[in-house]
């Protein structure tokens, strides 16, 4: 099989891994080397599905010995199998990088033989890149649950970010759909990573030259909609993961229901894309806006699909609004729909020079058509005079939820359930 053929098979198998971030590392280049990872937020292109491509995202192999019901690479799936040789993948990555196609490599894998054996092959790619080809670009390595701590340590010393997929929000889900995985096998490497990072920070305090361990931290991903777990449960779990394992990101992946397992949604169920989007918005609120999971889901275990979570919270709390744009503090401004972190900071800076009106605030980047319902400008209020929540919802809503909740027929015309099911939760 040619490298090109392997690339297509293993690129396709990796596409359900949501992360493509290349930020947070700060790795500098070195003389005679290739690349660096010190510039955050570079996306080299966007695929037809509107998702950014920053890293060469591939599996090392899709020849899995596990049988997770939601995954195309599972042992029982009829699909073409392929595996990269370490040198083949390292050289391909370097050449793509030299052409400025990518910021680096995102390497995941099916479990080939055993978790340790799989990790050894992945680490071999990283060693070739770092040590032989002088590659200083970004590397995200997916750790295989069940891999030994020494291998996790070796991986973290070569990669910028390491991650372990939590896969499903509940242990029951795992038992049903991924019986060879247990919560323990997933959480242990997460804990190893957290601990190794702490140790590394200590080492670097003592010896400044000690190599960095996963400078961009760890992340994880969970599938949404394959099991009946609620948004509240998902958000509480995310918050716990951020807290306990110092996650940099928790990613969500909407489940595409094409599996035939009795515990999975039926093949004609809707792909919960709007739900996935709302979860990302809620996650953003928790990370940058000072909201808690409890506040976001205080009324309902499921997120409102018609209103974004910040608007939904504001509509539920009329007693908190309107607030005066010229005097509100940062934390209060951050709770106003239409005001982002950047624009809230700009408001604070701009009002040192003058009192702000609607036009000023618009120039500062505020989405005025939302914010006017929650702000006063020098005492003037331009929002609704009525107290009607329904009217306010109608002004703020994104339209009927079904718009973002595509049925399989809507999304994939004339699709027949393929023999090879897409990998919703590839790897490890």
């Amino acid at each position, binding site marked *: 099989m040619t*490298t*090109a053929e392997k*690339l*297509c*098979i293993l*690129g*396709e198998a*990796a*596409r*359900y891994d949501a992360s493509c971030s290349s930020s947070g590392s700060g790795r500098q*280049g070195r*003389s*005679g*080397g*290739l*690349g*660096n990872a010190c*510039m955050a937020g*570079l*996306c*080299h*292109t*966007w*695929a*037809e*599905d*509107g*998702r*950014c*491509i920053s890293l*060469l*995202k591939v599996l090392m192999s899709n020849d899995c010995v596990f049988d997770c019901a939601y995954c195309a690479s599972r042992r029982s799936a009829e699909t073409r199998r392929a595996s990269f040789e370490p040198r083949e993948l390292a050289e*391909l990555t370097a*050449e*793509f990088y*030299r*052409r*400025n*196609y990518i910021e680096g490599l995102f390497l995941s894998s099916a479990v080939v033989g055993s978790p340790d054996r799989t990790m050894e092959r992945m680490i071999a790619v990283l060693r070739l890149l770092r040590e032989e080809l002088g590659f200083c670009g970004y590397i995200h390595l997916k750790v295989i649950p069940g891999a030994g701590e020494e291998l996790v340590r070796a991986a973290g010393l070569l990669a910028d970010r390491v991650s372990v997929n939590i896969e499903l929000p509940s242990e029951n889900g795992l038992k049903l759909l991924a019986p060879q995985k247990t919560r323990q096998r997933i959480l242990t490497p997460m804990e190893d990573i957290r601990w190794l990072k702490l140790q590394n920070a200590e080492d670097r305090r003592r010896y400044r030259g000690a190599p960095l361990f996963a400078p961009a931290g760890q992340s994880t991903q969970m599938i949404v909609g394959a099991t009946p777990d609620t948004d509240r449960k998902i958000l509480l779990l995310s918050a716990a993961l951020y807290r306990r394992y110092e996650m940099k990101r928790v990613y969500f992946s909407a489940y*595409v229901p094409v599996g035939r397992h009795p515990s999975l949604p039926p093949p004609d169920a809707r*792909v919960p*894309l709007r739900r996935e989007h709302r979860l990302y918005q809620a996650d953003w609120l928790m990370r940058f806006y000072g909201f808690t999971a409890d506040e976001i889901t205080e009324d309902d275990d499921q997120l409102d699909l018609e209103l974004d979570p910040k608007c939904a919270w504001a509509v539920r709390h009329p007693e908190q609004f309107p607030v005066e744009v010229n005097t509100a503090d940062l934390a209060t401004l951050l709770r106003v729909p239409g005001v982002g972190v950047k624009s809230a900071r*700009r408001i604070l*800076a*701009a009002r*040192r*020079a*003058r009192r*702000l009106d609607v*036009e000023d*605030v618009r*120039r*500062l*980047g505020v989405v005025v058509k939302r914010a006017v319902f929650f702000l006063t400008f020098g005492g003037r209020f331009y929002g609704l005079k009525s107290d009607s929540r329904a009217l306010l919802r109608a002004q703020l809503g994104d339209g009927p939820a079904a718009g973002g909740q*595509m049925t*399989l027929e809507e*999304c*994939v015309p004339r*699709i027949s359930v393929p023999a090879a099911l*897409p990998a919703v939760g590839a790897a490890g």
Partner: protein
Amino acid sequence: MTTLFCGGGFDGFLTAVFEAYRRGIETDCAIRRAGGGAVMTLGPSEEIPPDPVRAGRVERKLKALGMVRTLSLAWLSGEELEDEMLACVVRGIREGRAPWADRSSRPVGRVTAAADRVRLEAHRYVEFLRFRRVFGDPPVYLSDIEPLYDILPLIAGHFTRRFPSQLFLIREQGFGRTLVWDGREAVISDDPALFRLSAEDRGDAAGMWRAYFESVAIPWRKNKKLQAHFVPLRFRGRLTEFGAE
């Protein structure tokens, strides 16, 4: 009101600022680019030749206030913003700090917005520039770009730091300039001969990248509108994954 015509790029603008302050007319003069087309003036006008020493003094002052980068980017935009830029300089010097946070002020808003546009264009080419492997051993990589603004000096450092041992050329179509990096020194050249070099790609990486690009899109999430938002059509002609050879 006196109009000062400045030549010689951003240095020329800084020289005109120096001159405005020297004469005490900084709040009552207009600065215009020399050769920037017909300009109607309402009072006396004068050509101010660029002077590196005077420009340097203004630059040092503005640097201390954290204003040089935004002003130079706004200048690169080529838009007629000289009045707004001067107003910002005057305000910055008066207040003893850069006024950039106050985007609600009209001159600040216009200057920062223009600077943002240039910055974004540079950022986009950091992402969208594509190299072809064209000839030689060791190989030489070449890229053609068609930016809206003259961003070559802004992106040069990124690529020389990123590919310290890779020989490459970046040809800026429209401005007729080429960045040449030989592994030691970066030179921006106006030599038209560099545009006659063949850009034929050697190797099979481009084909593999195109195939990969197709394979990673999730068909049932197709969202071409979003894709078009992020990759505007004007860039696609030179993007390998959109079919550029």
